[in-house]
């Protein structure tokens, strides 16, 4: 934004009434962990599906003193992250960082940083599909009643059938969890690797779905338990022998990509999804590749 255009925007782009309404919904969401709270999702200068829900939460709670970090699939330099960061900084002027430990507010698409979050940090997740019951009950009204009565039998049958037919729980991302023993919640497309990080965490997790106009939250120290069976427990993704091609880490969420080579035509390699975590390990010389 040009300097002389500053007066055209309020702090954080949204008008104060909109921010107040979102904050009220956030308070309710925090008070009832895992419960989907409706909110009047506003139009933004980015398209629905690009993280408008998360963006509205961030814009509603950000303060001039905040230090912002925005990541896309763990990557600070992803297209989504770069554009959202630019929009937020241009309309607020807050400081930004790529270091997880330095950030007070982190907006993320589909990952939770590897570094454990602190009590003074807030993670805002962008949510494409709000309701875990969507797989088994497409009718929103009936699904709302099912949530109200904690009637999650059908979702459990979905999991049961998954085991019976495929031999295991075959949900890769958006893994359903029970929050505080009451509400079933969609974990957004974070990988299964990140699901345990939600349980009894120090930080506050806020989830925003702009297209579906819903907000939900996991407050600090709240139990988040993935759906699982005694004989088929929940497991995170792990493949023995896989390690980051850059820092050599084996205990992080790895993504694979193809690297073209001059002679043999190239190969598939894996690297840390959380680029900042990887850079820090390399910088500290903790593990050599």
């Amino acid at each position: 934004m040009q300097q002389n255009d500053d007066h055209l925007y309020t702090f954080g782009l949204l008008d104060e009434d909109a921010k107040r309404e979102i904050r009220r919904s956030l308070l309710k969401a925090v008070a009832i962990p895992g419960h989907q709270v409706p909110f009047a999702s506003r139009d933004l200068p980015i398209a629905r599906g690009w993280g408008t829900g998360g963006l509205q939460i961030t814009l509603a709670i950000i303060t001039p003193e905040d230090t912002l970090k925005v990541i896309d699939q763990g990557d600070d330099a992803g297209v989504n992250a770069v554009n959202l960061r630019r929009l937020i900084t241009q309309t607020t002027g807050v400081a930004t960082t790529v270091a997880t430990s330095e950030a007070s507010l982190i907006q993320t698409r589909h990952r939770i940083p590897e570094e454990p979050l602190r009590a003074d940090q807030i993670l805002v997740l962008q949510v494409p599909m709000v309701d875990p019951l969507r797989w088994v009950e497409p009718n929103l009204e009936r699904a709302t009643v099912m949530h109200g009565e904690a009637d999650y039998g059908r979702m459990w049958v979905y999991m049961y059938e998954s085991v019976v037919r495929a031999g295991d729980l075959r949900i890769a991302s958006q893994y359903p969890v029970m929050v505080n023993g009451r509400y079933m919640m969609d974990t957004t497309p974070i990988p299964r690797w990140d699901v345990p990080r939600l349980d009894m965490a120090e930080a506050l997790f806020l989830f925003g779905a702009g297209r579906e106009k819903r907000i939900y939250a996991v407050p600090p120290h709240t139990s988040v338990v993935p759906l699982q069976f005694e004989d088929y427990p929940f497991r995170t993704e792990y493949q023995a022998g896989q390690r980051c091609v850059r820092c050599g880490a084996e205990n992080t969420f790895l993504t694979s990509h193809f690297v073209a080579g001059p002679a043999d035509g190239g190969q598939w390699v894996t690297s840390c999804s959380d680029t900042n975590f990887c850079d820090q390990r390399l910088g500290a010389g903790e593990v050599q590749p």
Partner: protein
Amino acid sequence: MTTTSLLHVADLHKRYGPGCAACAELTGPSQGRSQCPRCGTVYACVAANFSLQTGEVLGIVGESGSGKSTLLQMVNLSIAADQGQIWYHEPGGSAPVDLLRMDAYAARRFRNDRLGIVHQRPELGLNMHFSVGGNVAEKLLLAEWRHVGRIRGRTSELKLQTELPPERIDDEPYTFSGGMLQRVQIAKALASRPSLLLLDEVTSGLDLSVQARVLDLIRRIQWEEQITMLLVSHDLGVIRQLARRTIVMKNGHIIEAGLTDQIMEDPQHPYTQLLVSSAL
């Protein structure tokens, strides 16, 4: 309520519409209609009173639209009653509870743990997108069973009990015949070992030989499990085979109640006499 009653229904009402001052005069068995001609209100159930003893089979008989299924659905807590009480006394348990005072969450738990229902139309009782085994497992999963192996074991038991082919446990319901689907519904209803089994026109639409086999199955299960049943049917033949006591309903009212044999041999109300004579 007697000490051995499992269920006591008292002054249960259900109407659809606002009602008017003339309703009482213009509806009921004496008028031959349950819909008020002035305001259009339908009186589906009016002042229903009955008790159900533990281990007993109680039949509810009447023509289509007489209110018997509405009464059953109110006992199943799937239709909200306008007024009245449904007292449930857990066998060997504590004080009776009024089911109509439960909140939605408690009602859902009660319905899953203590009640089993078999609908006339299988698609009302079964999820056609899940396998037969999954449908039966749903009751167990809702009752917090969290071990796939044990669920499979209980499902297999139920398959044997209801004479379903075990090798078809993972088939989709739409590949089953009507009689088989009723067996699947019965297996599902029995999964959580309910205190009360509700049967809503379970043999309607089935051919006579299949009907006879389903009735035999219900009779055998009742004998083996000593399960309390509330059986709704418009067919006196079905009621006669299964129920010890019977309630006759017409235009939303209970017009006669007593031992099934007594009602069959010495019906008091003109409508019951007509019903019995047409069944003979």
